[in-house]
């Protein structure tokens, strides 16, 4: 065994703490030391040295947690990547962060993100971009880029992110780690600074599939403070699957053909071949409405955000800019100064889409497309156990290469958005390298089929043996 506990996966460390071979306080201090090595702009806040939290005898074994900026943490800055909340310290802690701390994963650090989770490159963060540890000239993906980098670079053992249209899966893919977007409703949203309420869902970003299952197993709960939370239909167990005998994997041509970079396409095909070798049957599985998912998503998410972000008005908290010319002037000045360009763009898109006379043509229609996409998945899962696609159509792209063209940035989420609209679970695992950068493989299942997709992911992971050491500092 290595003397450095930070070289272990979270689950391995937790096991050592529980068997008494490792002291949880030492583990916390060791990870604090790792967090100090952040040269990627990934972390927005780090716990004080020597103040390791009270030890909790829980299933997570005291293995500390990196948490995305947008989770409210009492007395700790929770800014959602925005200048309008710079330095804002909430008076309460998000339900899921509280639950994980009780299960033995105390708060180690908080991580940068795209402002209000709007972005796919982490370049929309008001506090500077986050750099990809595989290549610092590249983006880490977004919006949970800071969380992905913290895990990939070994600054934290595991991390909490949120996924609205791909914000866990895409950065996980671009950083060579595992990211799970759970079934909508399985994890409480209480205390998550909202982007798009009907899509936001918290999930784990981890070194491997086992860590994802372990962290997720302690996140699921019906929360009386979140009316949309339903908990989970089954408890989550640690996956041990090593073969795929009897598993039918569906490949939607719509999400794996045109528009996928050749290098990404190549690792995807390799993984499909590997799946067949492990016993899986690979079948075509049409999702005819999936190509319209992005269009629907970019109406629904902005519409909800235009309303969710109305509370940032400078009256009760956060930044206030008051030209002294009445309430409306204060609102305008505060929001113009506090929100970045992408957030302003989406607020305007959403405001327009909800306007009287346009509602049916835009928001109403987008919701109907969403229903059709959900129906596509229902029909698809009648013929297969899971649907697989590349997670991202490309590897990590150079900083600044897509910022001038919002549409090309939006296309980054082409493969992940349909599952978000359907509310179903999907996991991304690293499945190879292209141009010296990791690629991601997405496995999606029916609602509440997390155990199933974690099992499939575990079998593939065991076979792929992805080497993530290239990102570790």
């Amino acid at each position: 065994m290595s003397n450095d506990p930070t070289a272990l996966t979270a689950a391995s460390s937790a096991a050592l703490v529980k068997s008494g071979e490792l002291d949880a306080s030492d583990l916390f201090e060791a990870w604090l030391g790792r967090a100090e090595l952040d040269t990627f702009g990934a972390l927005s806040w780090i716990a004080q040295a020597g103040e390791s939290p009270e030890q909790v005898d829980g299933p997570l074994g005291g293995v500390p947690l990196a948490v995305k900026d947008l989770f409210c943490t009492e007395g700790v800055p929770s800014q959602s990547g925005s200048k309008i909340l710079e330095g804002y310290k909430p008076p309460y802690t998000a339900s899921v962060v509280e639950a994980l701390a009780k299960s033995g994963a105390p708060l180690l650090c908080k991580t940068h993100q795209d402002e209000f989770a709007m972005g796919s490159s982490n370049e929309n963060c008001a506090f500077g971009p986050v750099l990809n540890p595989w290549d610092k000239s590249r983006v880490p993906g977004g919006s949970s880029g800071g969380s992905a980098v913290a895990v990939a670079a070994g600054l934290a053992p595991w991390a909490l992110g949120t996924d609205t249209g791909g914000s866990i899966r895409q950065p996980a893919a671009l950083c060579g780690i595992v990211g799970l977007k759970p079934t909508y409703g399985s994890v409480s949203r209480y205390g998550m600074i909202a982007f798009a309420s009907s899509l936001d869902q918290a999930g784990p970003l981890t070194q491997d599939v086992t860590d994802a299952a372990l962290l997720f197993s302690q996140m699921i709960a019906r929360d009386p403070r979140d009316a949309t939370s339903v908990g989970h239909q089954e408890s989550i167990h640690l996956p041990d699957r090593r073969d795929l005998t009897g598993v039918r994997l569906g490949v939607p041509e719509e999400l794996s053909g045109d528009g996928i970079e050749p290098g990404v396409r190549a690792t995807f095909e390799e993984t499909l071949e590997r799946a067949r070798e492990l016993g899986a049957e690979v079948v075509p599985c049409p999702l005819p409405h999936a190509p319209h998912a992005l269009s629907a998503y970019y109406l629904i998410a902005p519409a909800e955000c235009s309303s969710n972000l109305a509370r940032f008005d400078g009256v009760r908290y956060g930044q206030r800019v008051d030209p002294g010319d009445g309430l409306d002037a204060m609102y305008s000045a505060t929001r113009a100064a506090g929100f970045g360009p992408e957030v302003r763009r989406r607020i305007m898109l959403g405001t327009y889409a909800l306007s009287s006379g346009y509602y049916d043509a835009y928001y109403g229609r987008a919701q109907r497309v969403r229903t059709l996409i959900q129906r596509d998945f229902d029909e698809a899962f009648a013929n297969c156990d899971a649907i697989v696609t590349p997670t991202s159509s490309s590897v990590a792209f150079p900083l600044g290469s897509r910022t001038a063209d919002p549409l090309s940035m939006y296309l980054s989420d082409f493969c992940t958005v349909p599952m978000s609209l359907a509310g179903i679970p999907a996991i991304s695992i690293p499945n190879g390298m292209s141009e010296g950068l990791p690629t991601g493989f997405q496995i999606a299942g029916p609602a509440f089929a997390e155990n199933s997709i974690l099992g499939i992911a575990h079998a593939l992971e065991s076979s792929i043996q992805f080497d993530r050491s290239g990102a570790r500092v």
Partner: protein
Amino acid sequence: MTDWEAVIGLEIHVQLATQTKMFCSCSPVFGDDPNTHTCPVCLGLPGALPVANAQAVHLGLMIGLALGCSLASQSVFHRKNYFYADSPKGYQISQFDQPLCGPGNLAGVRIHRVHLEDDAAKLIHASESGRIAGADSSTVDFNRAGTPLAEIVTEPDLHSAAQAREWLALLRTTLRTLGVSDVSMDEGSLRCDANISLRRVGDQTLGTKTELKNMNSFRFVERGIEAEIIRQRELLDSGQTVTQETLHFDPRSGSLTTLRSKEEAHDYRYFPEPDLLPVEVTEAMIASARDALPELPIERAARYVSELQIDDVLAERLAGDAELAEFFDAVVEAADKSIEARVLATWVSDDAAGRAGDDGLLASKLEPAALAELVALVDDGSITTAAGRTVLDQLFEVGGSPAAIVSDQGLGKVDGGDELEAAVDAAIAAEPEAAEKVRAGEQKALGPLVGVVMKHTSGRADGGEVRKLLLERLGS
């Protein structure tokens, strides 16, 4: 001159008397120190989420049943988006196209809908009038933010300011009887807006309407609507048109000022609240609301007429005031069954309620059983009606037993005897001219003589007996 008909519809906001606010667990309390009943949810803090209050839904269903409304099987909360300092989330959560209760009817006025929503915070403007105009600064009290509201919307079935006031009073009594709200216009737990338009008598189409906002007393509702009807009539009579706008009635000056014009109307960008699931109204929820319904004012009035043989007007007057009706029911309960209910009703409605004034009967020392006993004393001739009223004054101020008051203060009826004869002699001596006229056969002249006797006996004498004695003495 054209004959105009006023067409009035009301929108009434009622704060529901729930244990907790509409979407969080803070208690909705009126009058406490500012910002002492708040939490992340009702302050609209980042990350906070609403959870709908089941008790508010229950009370909403009770209102719907009492107003004869159809009840939705599914009701959906929407977000009504607008920016204002009293709106912590930047939107109000309100039911839009699927309200909890659909069409209904109360006393011939059709109800359009009843829906649930959350109240805004209270703005306190630092100006002499308390209004924003001229204020140097404004502060926000979030205690009220998130208080559950039921909004009751009528069809335009009212046609005068007085009728609107009268109907609003019936609605208020109905809501008070239901126990769903404090219904205090003073404290803002009952608020009324009115939509007003005029049309030519006989016309079927509606004229252009204006909306009169937030009139905070019954008197102002009547005065405000009256003022707006006059304003519109003058415009139309002089060939001008009414402009659609929202108005404020200033009760001090009696003037109407524009709050906003049609062009300034908000686009609220309604959309279904994604943080809440639709409310599924089950048969069990409806049954539970129905079980909780007390006897309603209209039902009570009908019972007074049919079972107690009280006339319509008096029955409605009693039943139309929940507190008075409850007091009356208690008097009937306590009274000897030989006393007719309508006699008791007159005592309660005219004598007792007349003394109670604005504070209401419950604020006095008068007990229903004491009033029942008092009426019995009058009814069996132990005391005169006039003496009874004197006793009632005492019961109001200090309470106690009517019989004791009668005996302590010697209010028992003067039954013939020396005392009455002496009083009659004294009266004849005091009013010789009247006595002379009576002797001459002019019976009308008895009046002043009877008056003097009554004065001497403090009203304890029976009028008929006094007249008889006087006539005997004066030999006519």
